[in-house]
């Protein structure tokens, strides 16, 4: 497989206006990923499949990931005037990481026997702008997997031929794999209760003990 920088330049030349970014990977697996912007996702995917050197004809895995907002506290040294004297004071700066939902695609090439290429698409935010282009017209294997991502995370894929829930029932309203999902409370009985499960069971006992 050609190195990721080469693929990036090839795609930037083929799809004008596409904004691509290489995301680093801290683990020893060496699988770097390519972040593609939402507007050019479909065009870039088509180039990935059709280009002779790349020939990524097989989308192996489509995943959703939930990145909620995180507040990172950093200690920074700032010059401030304190009682008329300029001093370097340590301040704690709070920084919010952006919140988004992400779809990760693992691509392989059966014709040229190389892979994996990891591409990522991110939504604007987690609440109301959760649409992404569907890559099902390019790789049919995304059809059921994108439905599952919609079911469990809530990402709406535009251009998907049949976007409905896959695993949960149609009347279900939550998105269970999100980090802020509240489970239904049916822990009334636990044979060997411990830790937080015991707390959940006790809450039921208290609720039912009330007249």
């Amino acid at each position, binding site marked *: 497989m050609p190195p990721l920088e080469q693929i990036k330049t090839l795609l930037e030349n083929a799809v004008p206006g596409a904004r691509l970014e290489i995301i680093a990977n801290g683990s020893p697996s060496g699988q770097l990923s390519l972040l593609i912007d939402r507007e050019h996702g479909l065009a870039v995917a088509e180039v990935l499949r059709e280009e002779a050197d790349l020939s990524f*004809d097989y989308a192996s*895995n489509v995943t959703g990931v939930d990145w909620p907002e995180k507040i990172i506290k950093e200690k920074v040294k700032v010059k401030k005037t304190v009682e008329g004297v300029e001093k370097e004071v340590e301040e704690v700066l709070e920084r919010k990481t952006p919140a988004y939902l992400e779809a990760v695609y*693992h691509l392989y090439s059966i014709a040229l026997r190389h892979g994996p290429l*990891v591409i990522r698409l991110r939504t604007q935010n987690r609440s109301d702008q959760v649409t992404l282009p569907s890559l099902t017209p390019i*790789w049919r294997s995304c059809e*059921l997997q994108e439905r599952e991502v919609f079911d469990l995370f809530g990402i709406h894929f535009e251009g998907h031929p049949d976007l409905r*829930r896959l695993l949960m029932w149609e009347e279900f309203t939550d998105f269970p794999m999100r980090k802020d999902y509240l489970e239904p409370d049916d822990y009334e009985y636990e044979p060997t209760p411990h830790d937080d499960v015991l707390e959940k069971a006790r809450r039921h006992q208290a609720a039912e003990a009330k007249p």
Partner: protein
Amino acid sequence: MTAPDVMERIEPVPSAEPLEKPIQPRWTLSRPKKPAATHDFLEVSMGPHHPSTHGVFRMDVVLDGETVVKLKPVFGYLHRNHEKIAENTSYLGSIPYTDRLDYICSMTNNWAYVLSVEKLAGLAVPERAEYIRIIAGELTRLFNHTCLAGFLLQDMGALGTPMMYAFREREKILDLFESLTGARMMCNYLRFGGCRCDLPPGWIERAQRVVQDYGPFLDEFEALLTGNEILHARTKKVGVLPAALAVNAGVTGPMLRASGVNYDIRKVDKYGLYERFPFRVPLGAHGDVFDRYMMRILEARESLGILRQALSEIPAGPVIDPKAKLRNLRPKAGEAYGRIEAPKGELGFYLISDGGPRPYRYRVRPPSLINLTILEDMCVGHTIADAVVILGSVDIVLGEVDR
């Protein structure tokens, strides 16, 4: 007795060279034409409880007489929230849950997960452990493929007899697993960086005897089935899957190879020590149900060859690094995707670590679910009895489809 015309389809060793003419797949829209307005359609829900032993799977079929016009599968009746539970469980604690994904083949599920964690954390595996993994994996492939032949024949109406033979052999292999791991089905045997414990004394001789007996058993099995005219009538030209559609739809495993595409992850990724084992990759010429059935029988025979070699060559040594960190494994923040050639297809695990003891995102790439993407395409135009046979040939296990 093996059908002579099938042997020509096997590729000679070695079969890992890149194809001269790379396949240029195009996704063709293969949906049925809109039926005439005067037809009277019957909508039937097959499942989630139906006699085919694949589990709680439901297909909403629209029939024109007996011909399938539309087929929509419905999943989720065994959705056990494996991925969400894994986010609250340590890396080690998820291994028993992986047993229950494809519950017939627990060793290969363990292997896929353990491979992904080893990629994520950068762990090495000793040689003896790799050999044991290959032996366990190929034994699993043996009985999975034989049991599939049994289930397929049962769906066709051979009410249990091939299944009796298949399960009889499976019991012998389950005895081996029980003496090795302590459990028949949910083995929970592989660990990050090796195996849980070493082989008990005498295990290799017993395994060699099982493998020795398996060849004549497969001959007997095939003598009853492969030349059988009812099998031929019900499976030839039924459920044809063209190669280009198979590649584009993400179909993997014996189903892909039955359509003629030479892609076996053991040959492509060369994980474990599979490079040392010269085995052939059978390919189908037509992509119908009969090819998929023959694919499993031929792959079972190749597995016997691998097992004979592995059992005779297995080196001495440790099976796991004694200082390997299992309980409090905290891989560095990052991600990894590891995959193996499970008996059903490509089983992959995608793990994102945030540096803590539990994975941030744990994803199972289920071969059975993705092989079902083109179920409708294969079934449309056939009768409803063929739909059952086609579903049987896809080889699904609901624990993996719904996780």
